[in-house]
């Protein structure tokens, strides 16, 4: 057999060249890793808990809950903490691989979707014990598409307008309860040389809050849920009306929105450069100065057409059982524990930036602002979960972000195109 050295080198180089071509196709397999943990057998008082609470404060808060549970039940809980971005990005493969018995997740469509695919275990028996601790709105948010209970809420945080009390008192502004009052107030602020409504959408998602609220106030909570789940078409006058209504507000929102993050916009509110800011209550994390923090107040999104101010956007974080975890009594006990005021007090004792969901949780340590937020949630008839939790993530990230950013830019939106994109994306599920 003869081998020509040149030919040989050439084949090798060719292969290398083709290799460079193939690199473009690599991202496909990037999601093919599964989480793994020791299996928790039923009865053996051990279980695993997958936590996406990777930041320091929430991590310690969940550890406190786990410690309290272990002490109470004499069980052993192995906690596997994963950074929250990774956790969310790999949830598909995580649930299909060997997931932990219990894990942290959200209420809403993103919970119902996996429940519908049979990847979660229902916890109706747990809810028989803890049902009395939660409002109807929370119960509704914890229900799967088959009517069974899947989710146990831990905490939530409301979205609404935040403003500086002293600044408003000084200028003589009053809290608006209707959309017309809001527009009148905004016009007054603009005349006073202030940017009326703080706004930031460089990251794409914060503008969904404005969309959700105008949609719910115009068309009702159920329409919001159905639109997010694509049971309602995007190509209809009701959706156009949302954007038309928003357009009246657009001149009062910070024109620099597309270049700043919510953290930047929070600073502007603190510096009294903007009059008010529609965001989740996590905005208060940005006010490290205690005097400023104590000066921050909250009011719910004003009423527009239907249901007054009945609905509130308050994304709920809590726990789910994986399909495998459904066989573990300890894991069920853990979820039940999470649904008690006792466990939620333990959580709040470490992480005070969120609001416990269980009735009877200790509110005596709440700041006046937190109390107000908690009341707003408790009085709400419906709790929405924010667009990117109520809708298909691809719809939120790939369709809504570009659509809202271009709407903010020039006030135009193509609802027909939104519908055709939604049809394709939801059909792929």
């Amino acid at each position, binding site marked *: *057999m*003869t*081998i020509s050295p*040149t030919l*040989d080198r*050439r*084949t*090798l*180089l*060719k*292969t290398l*060249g*083709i*290799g*460079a*071509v*193939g*690199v*473009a*196709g*690599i*991202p*496909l*397999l*990037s*999601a093919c890793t599964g989480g793994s943990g020791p299996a928790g057998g039923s009865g053996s008082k051990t279980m695993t808990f997958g936590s996406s609470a990777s930041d320091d404060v929430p991590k310690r808060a969940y550890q406190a809950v786990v410690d309290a549970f272990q002490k109470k039940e004499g069980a052993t809980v192995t906690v596997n903490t994963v950074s929250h971005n990774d956790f*969310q*990005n790999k949830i*598909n493969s995580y649930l*299909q691989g060997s997931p932990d018995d219990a894990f942290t997740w959200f209420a809403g469509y993103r919970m119902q979707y996996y429940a519908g*695919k049979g*990847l979660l275990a229902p916890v109706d028996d747990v809810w028989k014990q803890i049902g009395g601790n939660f409002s109807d709105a929370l119960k509704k948010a914890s229900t799967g598409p088959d009517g069974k209970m899947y989710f146990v809420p831990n905490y939530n945080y409301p979205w609404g307008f935040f403003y500086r009390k002293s600044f408003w008192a000084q200028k003589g502004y009053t809290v608006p309860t209707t959309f017309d009052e809001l527009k009148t107030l905004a016009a007054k602020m603009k005349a006073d040389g202030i940017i009326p409504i703080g706004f930031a959408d*460089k*990251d*794409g998602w914060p503008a969904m809050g404005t969309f959700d609220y105008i949609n719910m106030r115009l068309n009702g909570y159920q329409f919001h849920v159905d639109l997010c789940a694509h049971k309602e078409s995007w190509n209809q006058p009701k959706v156009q009306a949302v954007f038309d209504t928003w357009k009246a507000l657009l001149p009062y929102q910070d024109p*620099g*929105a*597309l*270049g*700043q993050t919510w953290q930047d916009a929070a600073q502007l509110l603190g510096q009294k450069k903007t009059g008010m800011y529609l965001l989740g209550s996590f905005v208060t994390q940005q006010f490290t100065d205690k005097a400023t923090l104590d000066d921050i107040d909250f009011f719910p999104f004003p009423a527009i057409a239907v249901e007054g101010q009945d609905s509130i956007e308050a994304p709920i974080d809590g726990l789910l059982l994986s399909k495998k975890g459904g066989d573990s009594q300890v894991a069920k006990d853990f979820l039940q524990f999470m649904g008690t005021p006792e466990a939620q007090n333990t959580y709040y004792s470490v992480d005070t930036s969120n609001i416990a969901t269980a009735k009877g949780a200790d509110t005596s340590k709440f700041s006046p602002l937190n109390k107000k937020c908690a009341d707003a949630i408790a009085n709400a008839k419906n709790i929405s979960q924010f667009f990117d939790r109520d809708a298909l*993530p*691809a719809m*939120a*990230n*790939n369709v809504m*972000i*570009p*659509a809202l*950013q*271009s709407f903010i*830019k020039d006030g135009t939106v*193509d609802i027909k*195109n939104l519908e*055709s*994109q939604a049809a*394709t*994306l939801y*059909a*792929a*599920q």
Partner: protein
Amino acid sequence: MPTIPRKVRRLSKRDRLVLTVMVAIPTLIQLVFVWLPTLFSIGLSFTRWNGLDLTDIRPAGASNYQFVAQEYPPFWPAVQHNVLWLVFLAVVATPLGLLLAVLLDQNIRGSRLYQSIFFAPVMLSLALVGVIWQLFYQRDHGLLNFLLGTAGQPSAVDWFGDSNVNIWAALVAATWRHAGYVMLLYLAGLKGVDPSLKEAAALDGANAGQTFFRVVFPAMRPINIVIVVITIIESLRAFDIVYVINRGTNGLELISALVIQNLVGEGQVIGVGSALATILLVISLVPIVFYLTRTFGKEAKES
């Protein structure tokens, strides 16, 4: 004239075994990590799949491609931006790199220091690049607006947020990187040019410009081809800078950013993402085929 019989070399059994192993292992690695994923990607671009169960894969014909071309608003802006990126790198960044290389090749004092400075951006991590340009372009506290005297004023240009200017801001950042890369390659190329060529040109009365453009530059032909291919590939791969600015939205759409958006993470739509990846693959094939035919075509002629 009788043909000369080719010299035949016998390989020992061991040689053959070694050669087989050396060829087989890389081929296998190529197959598993490159070829199969590529083929899977192409295959999946003709399906709809939620990424959960293999039985959920449904054929979709060319509908994903139709979706991308007709219904997905960021796609055509992304194509335009990729073309703009290519033109900008070819017209501004690459000549700038060549200029730097020629200047630094003059044995000026501190040449190595300058080389390191210009090459540094190529080695910096994604996060650092983001921080550096944020400091530069930030609307209210950024260096650029400060120098322009508009920082903190309503007239300040929002370099990252204004979709009319942010692509140019990103292109300047890309040039900052690309020029350093090109400079290094050309420095190596210039060192490889036989000095006697320059001497001969000088003796023939050529001035510096003529010497460079008529003698030195053509002598660097192999490097020039590499640079052309690198410039094209860089413009197709362009991703990191727009991703750190705003993940490739609002005027910074690029095909590669759309591939990531649709394939990785929560916004995963496997069919659409695979279709975008396949489109990028087909476009990438053009410069690669060009490069391979130039390289191997020449080799075939010489052998």
